[in-house]
């Protein structure tokens, strides 16, 4: 068996750098995505300052072709990231069972965090697709339209047979937390794998940043609902 393994390595020598490139690409895609995510949240949070600022930034996105280039690039990045990161996830049922049992038995913090990362990845994957679909379908972004959307009570913006459910608020709160959790601990993992900092201090710094970003997100969502409440019925679409 050993010999066969060595032969494999020898034959595949021309691919001797693949594992390195793939590992680097995974970490780089992770860093870029978390950079995007935090930027994105800062942009959205400008709504707390003023709807005007939010609108001006949004117009800027289109004017300077940031949206036209940035959005496809981000989508591509997410696809690359999923493709690379899935390699590490326990994908066989057998692996999932081992992972769950070991995590539960050892009750080791970082291991549980990672299990949570794999699970939150599924949420982020599905919810990011929905989010992009909705946003792109109603482009361009304006404070008023976003506010109406956040405050609406169903996918069709109407009650479901008399049953009003704050669909988008719930959606966005889950998405926000899942995304920040996944990305924040993802960055921690990258730094732990490559860096020379003390991981416990670093962990606390990243947790701090994550809490701030989630706070900003919640503040933005709240502001949107307030704006929506003050709009005339049906909303004024600019």
């Amino acid at each position: 068996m050993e010999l066969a393994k060595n032969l494999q390595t020898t034959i595949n020598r021309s691919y001797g750098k693949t594992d390195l490139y793939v590992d680097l690409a995974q970490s780089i895609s992770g860093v870029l995505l978390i950079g995007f995510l935090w930027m994105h949240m800062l942009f959205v949070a400008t709504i707390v300052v003023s709807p005007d600022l939010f609108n001006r930034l949004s117009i800027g996105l289109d004017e300077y072709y940031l949206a036209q280039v940035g959005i496809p690039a981000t989508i591509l990045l997410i696809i690359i990231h999923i493709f690379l990161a899935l390699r590490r996830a326990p994908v066989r049922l057998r692996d999932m069972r081992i992972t769950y049992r070991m995590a539960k038995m050892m009750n080791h913090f970082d291991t549980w965090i990672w299990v949570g990362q794999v699970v939150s990845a599924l949420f982020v994957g599905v919810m990011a697709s929905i989010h992009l679909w909705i946003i792109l379908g109603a482009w361009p972004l304006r404070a008023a339209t976003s506010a109406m959307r956040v405050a609406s009570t169903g996918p069709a913006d109407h009650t479901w047979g008399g049953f009003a459910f704050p669909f988008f608020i719930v959606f966005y709160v889950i998405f926000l937390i899942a995304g920040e959790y996944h990305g924040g601990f993802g960055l921690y993992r990258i730094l732990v794998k490559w860096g020379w900092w003390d991981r416990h201090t670093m962990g606390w710094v990243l947790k701090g940043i994550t809490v701030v970003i989630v706070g900003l997100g919640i503040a933005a969502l709240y502001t949107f609902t307030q704006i929506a409440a003050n709009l005339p019925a049906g909303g004024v679409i600019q």
Partner: protein
Amino acid sequence: MGRQLTISCFRYNPNIPGDKPRMQDYKLEEHEGMTLFVALNEIREKQDPTLMFDFVCRAAICGSCAMLINGRPRLACKTMTSMLPSRFTVMPLPVFKLIGDLAVDTGTWFRDLQIRAEAWVHTNKKFDFNALEVRMENKTCEEIYDPEQCIECGCCVAACITANIRPDFIGATGINRVYRFLIDPRDERSNAEYYEVIGNEDGTFGCVGLMACDDLCPKDIPLQQNLAYVRRKMAAAGLKLDFKGVKTS
């Protein structure tokens, strides 16, 4: 009077046909300064001579007594029962081949590791019996001493989900072993040669960064630091390399 301890112990002897894995409870009285190593020996002496577990040094040096103590990989000889609740479980380490009950064969796994990691000083210098040994800087010596403390207990391997689900993964102890030679000036290997040994998914690039190894190594080896060092070094080395391979199609 010490506490009454109940040790719920994994029992299974694969060499007895028809034997089934099960948990068996042993009760005994705790006394001052008792380690799990002492407790297990008392059980074997006074209650059940068939109970299988390994130990040699009883001083955290030989690495044979590692087991899952309340689910966590630890050394039995370095675990005071006073740190544990009055009822706890002991199970054999996963990943390694089970010999019976709590005893596993870490030797075969580590033998394979030594070969794969080429864990010896590679040098072309002729050894001269009569000459004085070349002196080493104290600082270098201390740096090498730190990864060198690994006792091959297997705790970091058992604790690592990656090692559990990817049987070819070399584990933290393996990467740490390469680190030990990487910083040893006597080893004349080039970075390319180290890369060949460990610059792949079964080696340094296979580590996911779960840090169970770093938290659970009973010798407190700074595995996170050492693993990250190897990763950086191998990434830098790999990027510079030029591979010529066999075209298979």
